[in-house]
C-alpha cells in the first residue's frame, strides 16, 4: 500500500485534533485532541520510516510516546490544580488573566 494513504489518514487525524482544540472548551478534551495531533505525527513517522526502509522514524516515535506520557502527567496535574481553585475546567470560564 502506498505512502499517500497513510499520510492522508495522518493529516485527517491531525486536522481533527486541531479542530478539536479550537472548538472544544473542556481542558481535558482539548488535551486529548493535542494527544491526537501527536499521534497523527507518530503515524506519519512510522509510515514514512517504513516506506524509506530505515528506522529513524520509528525511534522518533518512541521518544514522542515518552514525551507525550510526561506531558499527560504534567498536564493532568496542572488541570487538577486549576479545578481545585475554580471547580471548573472550561477554558472560557477560567479567564481571570486578561488586560
Amino acid at each position, binding site marked *: 500500500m502506498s505512502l499517500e494513504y497513510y499520510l492522508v489518514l495522518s493529516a485527517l487525524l491531525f486536522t481533527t485534533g486541531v479542530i478539536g482544540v479550537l472548538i472544544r472548551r473542556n481542558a481535558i478534551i482539548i488535551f486529548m485532541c493535542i494527544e491526537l495531533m501527536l499521534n497523527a505525527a507518530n503515524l506519519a513517522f512510522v509510515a514514512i520510516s517504513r516506506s524509506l526502509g530505515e528506522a529513524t522514524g520509528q*525511534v522518533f516515535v*518512541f521518544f514522542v*510516546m*515518552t514525551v507525550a*506520557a*510526561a506531558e*499527560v*502527567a504534567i498536564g*493532568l*496535574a496542572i488541570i*487538577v490544580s486549576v479545578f481545585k481553585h475554580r471547580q471548573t475546567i472550561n477554558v472560557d470560564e477560567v479567564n481571570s488573566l486578561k488586560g
Partner: protein
Amino acid sequence: MLIDYLPILLLGLFAVLFAGINLALTHILGPKRPNRVKLSVYESGVRPVGDARQRFTIRFDLVAMLFIIFDIEVVFLYPWAVVFKKFSETSGLFILIEMLVFIGILLLGYIYAWKKGGLTWD
C-alpha cells in the same frame, strides 16, 4: 488496491447486520416481565450501593501518573536490547553501564517521588 479490501468490508457489514438483526429480533419478540430485582444493577450478586458515577480520590490520579511515567520508560529498553548483541563484542560493558546509568537516574526520580510523599495514601 482498494478493491482487494472489498471482502473485508462485506464481512464487516455482514457481522454488523447479523448482530444488529438478532438483537432487534430478541428485543421485539421476547416477552418482557420486569420486576424490581431484575431491573437492579448487576453487581456480582451483591446488593448494589449508591451510584456508580461518584468521584473517587485524587490519589488514584497521582499514582496513575507516576505509573505512566515510569512504565513508559521501559520502551527505551527494547531498542537497546535489540542492538546490544551487535555492540557486545567491542563495547558491551560500556553500553551496559550506559543503560544502568539511565535506570539509575530513573530510580533516583522514583526515590524522589517516594520521599516527597507521592506514594503515600491518606
